[in-house]
């Protein structure tokens, strides 16, 4: 397909030494931890942003922090770019490699190191999946709050890289609000620890800077996260509306009424149909838009909150209200929502936008999004975290048709600019990666970006860590 997003020119000085580099890296790792044959490298050429592919020079799968340190020390010494990778579920191309880069995959570092229920913390290796943490403490009545839809596969290291969110962060916050500490390896192989089991750390909040830095400040190998006691009960309720605008306005009014549900998810008609066909979640098919509102607490608390929410929904002309009667029904509602991206993938290729807008702009941005996509002759399905204004229009297209793909990308760019112009941002939880890199100057000016890049260079003066990502290729400081 036509590729409009560029990568840095591969360093010929690195590519020409490929054979030596592979041999040297193999010496730093146990047997079976380095991949360098073409068939083995193939699965690492992209992530969930599948429109772009680049073969890496090699893939290293270290088993310990010391091995990560040895790899980075080597790559730093010889100027070899490094692309960190968790499970490769990035929707923005954050884990897509390049021809001169060594991928450092953390998948073998998947041990839970410590569960401390007294202090309500879990310390895990970076390759542990998001869901594994919650499962490990579920029987004791706890969970780890951020819940990206890919939580079955995505790793905590990747979550930290992208500062991942999820449906339930309306109440509990995103990764940065639930992260207490990391062990990480700097570009030159130095191992540092930031934070720990205490709630705050001394000095500058480097942990806050590292979270969401898209693998550009170092490689996180261990993380300590906060655990939260599970609520007594949780109840998702479906609200069907005759228009997306009515649903959007209802969201703003629910929040404005002083009630913060755990989650408010939005689906428009195309998304409802796609998800219902896949998950049989019991979604109403005769409405234009659906809200999944989840409240939690005791039965009596949930009743009280729901009564207020229902009153607001009625003011916005809600057409259908469906409360689930059993835990199975509740699980089905969430299964439908969380499989939205996968289910969409069954019917078409798609790119998923991730802009966030102020709630007052939700209806306007939804309407404009529909117009923009229609203007390019494409279809869109909207399924997103409405409570915090984090929109996910899925632009459907055919990946094998270069013109279609170019139109989808152009529509996506227009939508993201719309989000910024509405007072929002380019990305709420998926990260900039390569996908939104060239739009950064729409949200920031060059001085803003220069300050970010300078801080980045304080960690990685040679720019070897995930170098093609986040910052526009033009206007970078000389390394």
């Amino acid at each position, binding site marked *: 397909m036509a590729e409009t997003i560029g990568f840095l020119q591969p360093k010929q000085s690195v590519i020409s030494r490929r054979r030596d580099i592979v041999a040297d890296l193999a010496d730093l790792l146990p047997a079976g931890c380095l991949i360098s044959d073409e068939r083995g490298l193939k699965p690492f050429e992209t992530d969930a942003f599948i429109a772009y592919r680049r073969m890496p020079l090699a893939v290293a799968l270290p088993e310990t922090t010391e091995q990560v340190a040895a790899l980075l020390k080597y790559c730093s010494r010889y100027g070899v770019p490094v692309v960190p990778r968790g499970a490769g579920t990035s929707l923005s191309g954050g884990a897509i490699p390049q021809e001169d880069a060594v991928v450092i995959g953390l998948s073998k570092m998947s041990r839970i190191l410590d569960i401390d229920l007294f202090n309500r913390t879990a310390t895990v290796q970076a390759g542990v999946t998001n869901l594994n943490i919650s499962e490990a403490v579920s029987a004791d009545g706890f969970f780890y709050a951020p819940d990206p839809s890919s939580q079955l596969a995505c790793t905590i290291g990747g979550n930290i890289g992208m500062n991942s969110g999820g449906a339930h962060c309306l109440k509990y916050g995103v990764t940065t609000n639930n992260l207490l500490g990391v062990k990480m390896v700097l570009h030159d192989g130095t191992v540092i620890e930031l934070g720990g089991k205490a709630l705050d750390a001394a*000095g500058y909040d*480097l942990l806050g800077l590292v979270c969401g830095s898209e693998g550009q400040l170092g490689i996180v190998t261990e993380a300590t996260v906060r655990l939260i006691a599970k609520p007594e009960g949780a109840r998702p309720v479906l609200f069907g509306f005759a228009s997306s605008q009515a649903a959007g306005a209802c969201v703003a009014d629910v929040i404005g009424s*002083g009630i913060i549900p755990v989650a408010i998810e939005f689906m428009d008609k195309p998304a409802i149909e796609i998800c219902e066909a896949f998950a049989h979640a019991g979604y109403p098919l005769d409405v234009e838009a659906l809200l999944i509102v989840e409240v939690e607490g005791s039965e009596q608390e949930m009743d009280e909150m729901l009564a207020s929410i229902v009153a607001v929904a009625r003011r916005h002309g809600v057409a259908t209200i469906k409360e689930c009667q059993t835990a199975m029904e509740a699980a089905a509602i969430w299964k439908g929502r969380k499989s939205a991206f996968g289910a969409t993938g069954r019917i078409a290729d798609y790119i998923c936008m991730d802009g966030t807008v102020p709630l007052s702009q939700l209806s306007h941005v939804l309407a404009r999004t529909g117009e923009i996509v229609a203007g390019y002759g494409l279809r869109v399905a909207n399924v997103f975290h409405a409570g915090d204004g984090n929109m996910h229009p899925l632009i459907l297209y055919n990946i094998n048709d270069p013109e279609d793909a170019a139109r989808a990308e152009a529509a996506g760019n227009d939508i993201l600019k719309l989000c910024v112009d509405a007072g929002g941002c380019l990305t709420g*939880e998926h990260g900039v990666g390569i996908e939104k890199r060239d739009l950064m100057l729409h949200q920031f000016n060059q001085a*803003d970006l220069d*300050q970010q890049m300078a*801080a980045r260079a304080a960690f990685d003066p040679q720019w070897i860590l995930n170098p093609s990502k*986040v910052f526009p290729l033009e206007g970078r400081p000389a390394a």
Partner: protein
Amino acid sequence: MIVHFEPASEEGIATVVRAMAADRASLAVIGGNTRSGLGNPVRADRVLSTRRLSGIVSYAPAEMTLTALAGTPIREIEQALAANRQMLAFEPMDHRPIFASSGEPTIGGVFAANVSGPRRYVAGAARDSLLGVRFVNGQGEAIKAGGRVMKNVTGLDLVKLLAGSYGTLGILTEVTFRVLPLPPAAQTVVVSGLNDAGAAAVMAEAMAQTTEVCGAAHLPESVRGRFIDGALPDGAATVLRLEGLEASVSLRADTLAKALARFGAVARLDGGQTAKLWAEIRDVKPYADGTKRPLWRVSVAPSLGHQLVAALRLQTGVDAFYDWQGGLVWLRMEADPEAELVRRYIKVLGGGHATLVRAEEGYRAVIPAFEPQPPPVAQLSDRVRATFDPHRIFNPGRMAAIS
């Protein structure tokens, strides 16, 4: 303190900073000057106050966000929020009582020092509520970071870095932050007569319940009488706060009281008493005694707070009370030198840090007020600082342990 510059605009601040940078002159940055006792003494050529850069820029209650200029008094912001039944979730401490300082604390100062209170344990620190900032860096450039929405991962999160940097990276000019609905009701469950270790266990037990405790503090007998005019029941008080809808708070308080009855006598405080008690815990009332006796703020894992105090007691006289389930220890000692002792024991127990919050200026001049960092982290912090303030003109000396 003599204030040399009080610009009323961001551009005015940038102009001052450019002039200072050109002359390689240093600048102390203050808001309302109510927390200047915090950290190491600043030795600067000039003083700049953000006080005149004041006012709420925009406030959208339905979006739960507020934007204010950095010099806006906290009082003004809290009044605007209260009028819409909202609040600052992180419950910022007012430092005036412990420093016996006067003036108006500003919102910029709160975020520059990442000032948080008892609810920090469940609702996050000031930095967790901060969505976006504008600031002037050490080269006099106005920089924007973050934004106005809850979820935003666009670019490096400089917002977190600026929070808690005590004005050493840049001068905040505007802040945008998240606010939360004011809970309609609150109660406190009090368990009496526990020792420090027992209290830690009870607080951990309470936090593991589904009752959504949003404040967990232990007030040993030595300080108990100084809270809410001595109205807490006799004996050390372990206090647990519940907030929410009226009926639900009562119900949860019943559940919690029942679950904790086996540990000691249980009493309850109503909404009025609860508000007063937690404000006093937040502002460290027992040690707001008009003195400049050294006061330490220790942050450790909740299970370690009481162990630290017990270990220190074998060496010296200690008076302490606990917030954040036991992980935040407000501490007074009779040791000499104190810093070395408390920091050594924190390391032995497994990590955390101690901040010298208050002391005579002479003492603060020789003791690193903030916990010294391991060399690689200190060097990294120093490199980061240099990218914001290459000439080191902002608040030189304030974070002596950092750079």
